[in-house]
């Protein structure tokens, strides 16, 4: 049974269809990338799935149950976690406290929450930063903290929203390792939105492409990269003709 199923999802804001008849399915244990040019509707899709707002029409099923109209807290309780692209922190909580908030979803005990948070931080190589304020950390560490916090809720499915944005190549390597660890090591199903192609194309087993709200391609990274529709969406017509005449 698919862990996540999206059926004919439409999300319209006024007259604009941010998501237009999108359908997809995620099997447990997959690592799927979601790409597309800016404004394609990727984050909107995440928001619908995660319960930030309800879709205009269509259905969302999680672990076989219809969760279309459920809100974010409910989704979190059922095992869906997500990170946010832009994290505006009021700066009151330090790293370990942030992660503990997530831990408190499944336990009432302070000591257990703390212990679990320490474990997660150790797992992601953040132990040494546990008492720092999130707002004082460099971007790469902040991104990992958001991942740690999401992991704290013991999710079955983790949605990562542009965790590599703003990172330099070696930081991207680190985060790739982190994602692989979460996926293979912890056995969590992952879907990630990315613009950084080396990341998404290298870690994903499968890639879904959105453009202007519609799904235009889906498949292994290698195939998707050559798909003329995808090339057209990113680079324009010209490049499509050039690519398809490329002998390699």
């Amino acid at each position, binding site marked *: 049974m698919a862990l996540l199923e999206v059926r004919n999802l439409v999300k319209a804001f006024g007259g604009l269809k941010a998501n237009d008849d999108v359908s997809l399915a995620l099997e447990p244990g997959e690592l799927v990338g979601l790409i597309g040019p800016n404004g394609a509707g990727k984050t909107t899709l995440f928001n619908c799935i995660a319960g930030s707002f309800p879709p205009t029409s269509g259905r969302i099923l999680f672990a076989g149950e219809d969760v279309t109209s459920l809100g*974010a807290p409910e989704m979190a309780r059922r095992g869906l976690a997500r990170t946010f692209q832009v994290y505006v922190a009021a700066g009151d909580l330090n790293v370990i406290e942030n992660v503990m*908030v997530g831990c*408190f979803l499944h336990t009432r005990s302070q000591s257990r929450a703390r212990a679990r948070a320490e474990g997660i931080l150790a797992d992601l190589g953040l132990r040494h930063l546990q008492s720092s304020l999130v707002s004082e950390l460099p971007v790469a560490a902040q991104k990992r903290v958001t991942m740690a916090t999401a992991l704290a809720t013991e999710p079955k499915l983790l949605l990562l929203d542009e965790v590599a944005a703003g990172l330099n190549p070696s930081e991207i390597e680190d985060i790739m390792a982190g994602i692989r660890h979460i996926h293979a090591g912890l056995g969590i199903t992952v879907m990630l939105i990315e613009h950084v192609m080396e990341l998404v194309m290298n870690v994903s087993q499968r890639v879904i492409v959105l453009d202007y709200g519609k799904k235009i391609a889906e498949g292994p990274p290698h195939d998707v990269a050559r798909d003329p529709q995808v090339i057209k969406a990113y680079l324009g017509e010209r490049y499509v003709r050039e690519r398809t005449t490329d002998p390699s």
Partner: protein
Amino acid sequence: MEALKSALDFSDFPRIDRVTALAAAALLFAFPLFPHSAFAMATMIQFLMFSLYGMGWNTIGGYGGQVDLGKAQYVGIGAYTTMVCLLRWDIPFWVSMPLGACFSVAWSFLIGYPLFKLKGHYFAIATIATSLVLKDLFEVWKFVGAARGLGILPFKYQTPDFLRLIFKEDVYYYYVLLGFFIVGLLYMNCFRKSRLGFQLRSIKDNEEVARSLGINVHWAKIKTYAIATAFVSVVGSFHAVYIKNIEPEDTMSLDISILIALMAMLGGAGSLWGPIIGAGVLIPLKSYLKEWLGAAAGLVGIDLIIYGLIIMIISAFEPRGLWGIVEKIRRRRRV
């Protein structure tokens, strides 16, 4: 059990904090043994009361970040419940105080549900509105003495009366209140590390993120509001038997609500010591200003002017309060 351990655990504070706190506690216990004026004793009692008010407010206003300017209504409910219970049915304090807290909490749930649909300034003004409505009602309600209020005649009772909490000498009140103070402080220590405490702080940080972590924001706020209410109501009940004379204008006015919020804000909203520091600075200041300046002929209101100026200066230049300054210095030292 774990809650108790947590309440007694101050280990996340640096040693100097813990030592200072213990020293301060010792001083508080010893205070009545030193020679002191009646005025000083009264000021100390006010200090303890407002620390407790401030601590309560701090839960929703400080850790929760929701500025509540209507706490005075709960002072009123607590005070009047105790007063009426005593005067009409001779019910002891230890029964009427929890009863008052129950009424307060019930009312807080009733208005909390719609209140917390609002945010920011709108929320703050709404809290003022509800508090004033209740005050207006009390001002015409004959059952509670309307605008004239109610009063206890202490000589009617055999003092010291621990059941009804009626004493002729302030020192008894002081120690009872000190007991409440310690309990309140320990509770707050447990609260800030508890699940609800963390949820609130996450909400204050970023509501959308909090929701994505499974937190039911609306409900968390309502629960915390109820806790704040209970604190305030309990002290309100105490106020009734201590001051022995209550009327809507001095227990339920907007000035009281603002004063309560100010304790935590001046001292450092969202920190454990904040309300106590705030009360420790503001209450003596207010009392002594009033003594020296307010009564002086023709200078009515100067104490409030100075008071207002202090509020203005803190708001404009150090909104994180005194504890915020301490933390800033510490952080700079660390780097």
